[in-house]
């Protein structure tokens, strides 16, 4: 089914006076999208609206061309991994996923097959027969992801699926979502830990105070932020000599030499010309450059600029 994955028009949702989402107009294409934003920015509310668990208080929302709330057609084609840890404690991992698959209309055998396959895929193969009550936080997250992908949905909505996973688990789940994306499944993942999103996708949507602040590949979003100069961090054995030469360049805004560790922070509006000039100056001054890094491209920097 072509067309936009989802589109929201002046979407709003609040709980009493507490505003979850104030006024969101957004449309997303298929593929893997990272949803980032500070605590309380409205990510969870938005995901619950997309998953059809709650109704908008204002505005309209269409997912896969459908009105999401309590829409059986959407539930057939989408999987939801909620934020809360709750699971059926007294059932085993296999029983939980198989039961939920049966609700999708699969036969007993088909449900069991899909449950086993999903559990293997998230790495819960050997724990499938154990009671969920005994699962660690990481295992619970994997079980929740398993029930969201077991019925082979077109869209998976996951609310902070990496919360509580150790680095091994995190790496595996990121790979799983990336693979799902490659297999044509659209994935909408919200997370706090930005370096996870960068590993998973370049397409980000940034929420803040219940509104859409930015959307698109990280790099391009950074370009739009012209009002913020680009920051480059250098380290050299003789920082002062190098700094004196750099200050001469007319497109360099400021140079700050760190007190002890030979660090130089440079702010400039034209990054490319700066790198060209640096290559020349470093060769001439032989100031012993040991590291060169430009922070701005990282999502965290973009996040700070926008959310500051």
């Amino acid at each position: 089914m072509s067309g936009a994955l989802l589109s929201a028009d002046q979407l709003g949702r609040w709980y009493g006076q507490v505003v979850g989402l104030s006024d969101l107009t957004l449309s997303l294409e298929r593929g893997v999208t990272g949803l980032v934003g500070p605590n309380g920015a409205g990510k969870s509310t938005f995901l619950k609206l997309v998953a059809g668990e709650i109704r908008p208080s204002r505005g309209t929302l269409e997912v896969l061309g459908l009105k999401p709330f309590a829409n059986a057609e959407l539930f057939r084609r989408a999987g939801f991994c909620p934020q809360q840890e709750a699971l059926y404690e007294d059932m085993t991992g296999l029983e939980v996923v198989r039961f939920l698959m049966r609700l999708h209309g699969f036969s007993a055998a088909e449900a069991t097959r899909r449950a086993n396959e999903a559990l293997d895929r998230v790495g819960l193969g050997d724990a499938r027969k154990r009671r969920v009550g005994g699962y660690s936080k990481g295992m619970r997250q994997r079980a929740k992801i398993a029930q969201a992908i077991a019925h082979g949905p077109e869209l998976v909505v996951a609310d902070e699926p990496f919360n509580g996973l150790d680095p091994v688990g995190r790496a595996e789940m990121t790979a799983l979502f990336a693979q799902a994306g490659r297999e044509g499944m659209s994935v909408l993942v919200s997370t706090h830990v930005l370096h996870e999103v960068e590993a998973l996708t370049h397409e980000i949507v940034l929420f803040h105070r219940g509104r859409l602040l930015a959307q698109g590949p990280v790099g391009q979003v950074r370009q739009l932020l012209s009002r913020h100069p680009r920051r480059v961090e250098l380290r050299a054995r003789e920082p002062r000599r190098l700094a004196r030469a750099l200050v001469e360049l007319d497109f360099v805004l400021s140079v700050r030499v760190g007190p002890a560790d030979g660090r130089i922070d440079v702010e400039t509006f034209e990054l490319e010309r700066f790198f060209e000039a640096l290559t020349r100056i470093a060769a001439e001054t032989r100031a012993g450059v040991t590291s060169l890094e430009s922070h701005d491209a990282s999502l965290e920097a973009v996040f700070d600029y926008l959310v500051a």
Partner: protein
Amino acid sequence: MLNFLRTTWLLYRTHLVRTLRARRMWLVAFGVALAPAIAWVVAQSPRTIRGLDVLTALGFLLTINVMAPLASVIVGAAVLGEELEDRTITYLLTRPISRPAILVGRWLASATVLVALFAASAALLGWVAGGFPPPSNEKYVIPPGLTGALVGASALAVLTYSALFSTLGVFFKHPMIVGLGYAFTIEGFLANLPGKNQALTIQYYVRCFLASQHPQAWAGVEDVVPREPLDAAQAVRWLLGIALVALAIGAWALRRKQYELTA
């Protein structure tokens, strides 16, 4: 409609297994086994005791009056209340199923277990009471249909109570507390008041069903026979009516209900 039936059957099967495994089920089973056990203990005592009294006193005072509402509150409130409190309802609300089936399917499972337990307990009580020495006076012979009436009354009581308390789970955050409040303070208070407000309590209809078939048998136990008792058929219609209405309201509300499960 087919989706409703299929989902109800699925939820029925799953919840049945989970209810049987739940720790609180042993508590309810113990409570229900109390009446027949006590009857058996009484049977051992040398005193001459009439089987009829054992059946009526234990049957009504213990099983119908206290155990039925208590067990129904504990099991009924867990039908939806527990799932809401644990916030696992999300997994059901985002499935392509008919939502009313969630309430109906799970209630059916709880009701099955409750009815089975209470019917068995009443039947067992009847059997133990039957084993007592025949009474000297003809008046105190246990009329043949009395045990059947007790079994019926117990089953109907838990059926109706559990339907009511399950529906409370849809509307209230703490259905157990609201249920306890109703069962023990409101019902306990209203059921003993003279006049029409008895009709507001489920106990009244259960007593009507119970006493209307063999009124003289229940004379021994005070305040069982209500002042203007309905006949058995009317009482049954009322009880089933209450259960159906309660479930219908709950099911209808569940269709559009949003549960704001704050993180």
